[in-house]
Every structure is written in C-alpha cells, then in structure tokens.
C-alpha cells in the first residue's frame, strides 16, 4: 500500500494518542482520566488494525478481538471504585 497512507495514519493516530495522554495527565477528576484511558485504548486498537491493514497479515486479528471484548472493563472498574468512595 502507498507509503503516504502509512505516514498519514502514523501522524493522525500519534496525535490522537498524545492528546489523550495530555487529558490523562491533566485530569482533573478520576473519571476524566477513565475517559482518557478508554480513548487511548481505542487508539491502540486502531493502530493494531491499521498495521495489519498496511502489511496485510492476520496475525494480530485475535488481539483485536480480545481488546474489543475486555476494553471497557477498565473504565467500568474505575467507576465501581469511585462510586464506593463517594457513598
């Protein structure tokens, strides 16, 4: 595939990851960070899928499936924790 496509993908996803990281550092609340972590995980998912698309291999497809299945558990458990603190 065209190397320009690969370059654009790296720039776009890299910028998205950096923006999510800034939000992760800034907060201000734990829930903001949970949202940022969700976002970061989604960017990683997109990056794994993009790499498989560019190099045309199927090695990482099961990784995608596993990440998509358990990805939401992180923020769900954060919510459980902060809810218990509040009550």
């Amino acid at each position: 595939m065209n190397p320009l496509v690969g370059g654009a993908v790296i720039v776009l996803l890299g910028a998205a990851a950096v923006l999510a990281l800034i939000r992760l550092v800034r907060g201000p609340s734990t829930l903001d960070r949970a949202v940022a972590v969700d976002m970061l995980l989604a960017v990683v998912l997109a990056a794994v899928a993009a790499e498989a698309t560019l190099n045309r291999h199927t090695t990482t497809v099961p990784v995608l499936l596993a990440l998509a299945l358990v990805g939401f558990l992180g923020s769900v458990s954060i919510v459980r924790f902060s809810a218990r603190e509040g009550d």
Partner: protein
Amino acid sequence: MRAGEFADAASAVCLLTGCALAFVAGVGLLRFPDTLSRMHTVAKPQVLGLLLVTLGLGLRLRSGIDIGMLVMVAFFQLTTVPVATHLVGHAVYRLPQLPTGDLAIDELGDGADPKR
C-alpha cells in the same frame, strides 16, 4: 485483479477516515469544557472511527474467517462501549461537586437532586 485494487483503495479510504475521526475525538477530548461533553467524543467519533478501521482491514484481508472475526470485533465494540459510557456518565452526575460545567437546562437537577 481490478476488484482487488478497488477493494485496496476503498480500504485505504476507510483507514484514513477512521484515523482522522480518532484524531478529531482526541481534539474534542482535550477541548471540551466538562467531563460529560468529553465523553461524547469517546462514545461517537471514536466508535465510528474504529468501525471504519475494522471495515478497512476486512476489505484488505478479504478472507471468510477473518471477516467473521472482524464482524465480532465490531459487534463487541458496539455493545461494550455504550455500557462503559453509561456507567461513567452516571458516576459523573453523582460526583460530590458536580463537574458538569454550566448546563443550560438541567431537568434532573431541578427536580430531585438536593445538591443543586
């Protein structure tokens, strides 16, 4: 061969659109003023972006069993992300100091919530 080239081109378009949406979601995550608004970016452009990237991968791989797996990836995304969104949104609204920014109209807070 022509069909293959066409599918590759469509795959590149899907991939780029999906990555652009992920980038826009990142911008929104940083720019929006309060937690609930930020969650909109994770719930919408991010989900559509991932679906497009997955579609692009399916168009590029073009084999039955992999497409089956990718359909499952898309399905799990669509069912699990709203669950996380709802739980986080619920928790945000229940925080001691409401970090929802300035709401124009707050029907939940007006009626029953003693904190406002």
